[in-house]
């Protein structure tokens, strides 16, 4: 059975991608999925060579034929997203594609058109196949794109007889994160010992519990505030969430990124050593 290890964080910038990219390099026989589709960074470390790409069409956008339009204003009355201007032009960024305006337009002047909101890729990397995407500028529907990427990654794993998918997720608790953790075998939350890191960790662990997904935690930049690390350990112990490790603050993490490499490839310093140790634990925990 294919197992899925998802790396998320709640708060942004805690080191999700550095950890996930290191796991990608340490593991065998897996497919990597970058589900942080609106700020994807995995490709900067894995330097993918795309072998397949497809346009991502997500829903529709309204389009008003000005020649057929009688300027009656019914569409303005029905639109709940302020997406139509007083001179009957659709704002593509605000339009959610509900089609209510088109349904009720008495002149039949509104067409719902397919909308390309991004592109997704299957690529070869030195760590194995990577499925990733580029959401268009200011586009929505990231949850649907995440679901698509995870599905493709599983299909590739199936074809190749691999038993693991490593997923890099996005910050927050909303639509793309819910899509990312759904169906995961194990979620690793990368946090940091800061007041905001702790606050966001608690919210994201509520989310994994809400959706009944197994979680583990690792603390990055751990030596910034040892008291807060102790608080995180205490919180996790009370909530029966295992703490897989504490990665020390190490400039090699930034240096590896600048060199376009994962931390474990670039460095044999303290951060890399701890990430290796956490991977050993994850490998068993994911099942």
């Amino acid at each position: 059975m294919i197992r899925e290890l998802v790396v998320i964080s709640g708060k942004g910038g805690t080191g999700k991608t550095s950890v996930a990219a290191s796991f990608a390099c340490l593991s065998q026989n897996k497919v990597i999925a970058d589900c942080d589709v609106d700020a994807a960074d995995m490709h900067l470390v894995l330097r993918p060579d795309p072998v397949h790409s497809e346009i991502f069409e997500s829903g529709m956008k309204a389009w008003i034929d000005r020649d057929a339009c009688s300027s009656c204003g019914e569409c303005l009355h029905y639109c709940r997203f302020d997406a139509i201007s007083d001179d009957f032009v659709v704002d593509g960024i605000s339009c959610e594609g509900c089609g209510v305006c088109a349904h009720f337009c008495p002149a039949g002047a509104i067409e719902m058109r397919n909308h390309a909101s991004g592109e997704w890729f299957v690529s070869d990397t030195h760590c194995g196949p990577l499925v990733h995407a580029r959401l268009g500028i200011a586009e929505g529907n990231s949850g649907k794109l995440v679901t698509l990427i995870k599905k493709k990654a599983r299909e590739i794993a199936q074809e190749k007889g691999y038993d693991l998918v490593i997923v890099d997720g996005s910050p927050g608790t909303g639509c793309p994160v819910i899509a990312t953790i759904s169906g995961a075998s194990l979620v690793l939350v990368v946090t940091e010992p800061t007041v905001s890191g702790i606050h966001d960790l608690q919210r994201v662990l509520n989310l994994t519990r809400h959706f009944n997904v197994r979680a583990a935690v690792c603390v990055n930049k751990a030596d910034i505030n040892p008291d807060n690390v102790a608080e995180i350990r205490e919180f996790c112990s009370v909530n029966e969430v295992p703490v897989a490790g504490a990665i020390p603050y190490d400039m090699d993490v930034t240096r590896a990124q600048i060199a376009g490499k994962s931390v474990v490839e670039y460095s044999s310093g303290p951060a890399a050593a701890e990430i290796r140790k956490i991977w050993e634990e994850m490998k068993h925990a994911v099942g």
Partner: protein
Amino acid sequence: MNIAIASGKGGTGKTTVAMALATCYARNSLSVALLDCDVEEPNVNLFLKAGIDTTEPVSVLIPEVDEPSCNGCGECERICAFNAIVLVRAKPLLFAEMCHSCGGCYHVCPERAIKEIGKEIGFIESGTRDGIAYAGGRLNIGEAMSPPLIREVKRRHSDSGTRIIDSPPGTSCPAVEAVKDSDFVVLVTEPTPFGLNDLNLAAGAVRALGIPFGVVVNRADIGGDSFTAEYAKRGYDIIASIPHSREIAEGYSRGDCVSYIVERFRAEIENIASYAEHQARRNARV
């Protein structure tokens, strides 16, 4: 004037910059509000520590079907673009988390069997501290769609002279909702490959929205000089730089780095404000 603080990449220092900027306005006795629109992970009040005066729930409209009036015609299912209402054995079944509150099913139902009811998606807390008016949204756990809550937070403190909007990371719907209609956007970045990549995405989104912006480089000395050339090449105006320091990082971890930053880097922070005002005025004229 509305100034949005955004970033693309998370953890670059949006909230810190938003706090520092609001503090400078308040210390100059100017009317200022700080709105936390990162409703999935709201952090502003961990730093501001304002007492909360009011807490209001925020709801969106979802349909409710009056079964006796429903004849199972399926018009609601046909108009719903989000698969949120599906007929099962000639009875409409609602998936509330998929609903975008467009009102299509409500308007289309020929039997008038659908009414719209409120579903709570989160709440907004408001208060004041040290001359800064605060409002922050908090999305309920398990709720997928944050834009309606963000929209509501942005209606708060409309009487303040300057409103500073702390935006969520990323470049998709929540970030766009927070940033749009602003007079100026401050993009906070860090000089790393991830920081630059996500800055370029965020700058693309802000340009598509037609809003003037400037860039604040945080931990400015961690990445080497090559990034300065990258910013220039893409036409970004660097309006402030804050160096990396263990003191700031440790202060941040405790939730008390803001006054340190305001004291050390007052000129940098005030430059953000004057640049924002200048650009917003210039943009309003054209």
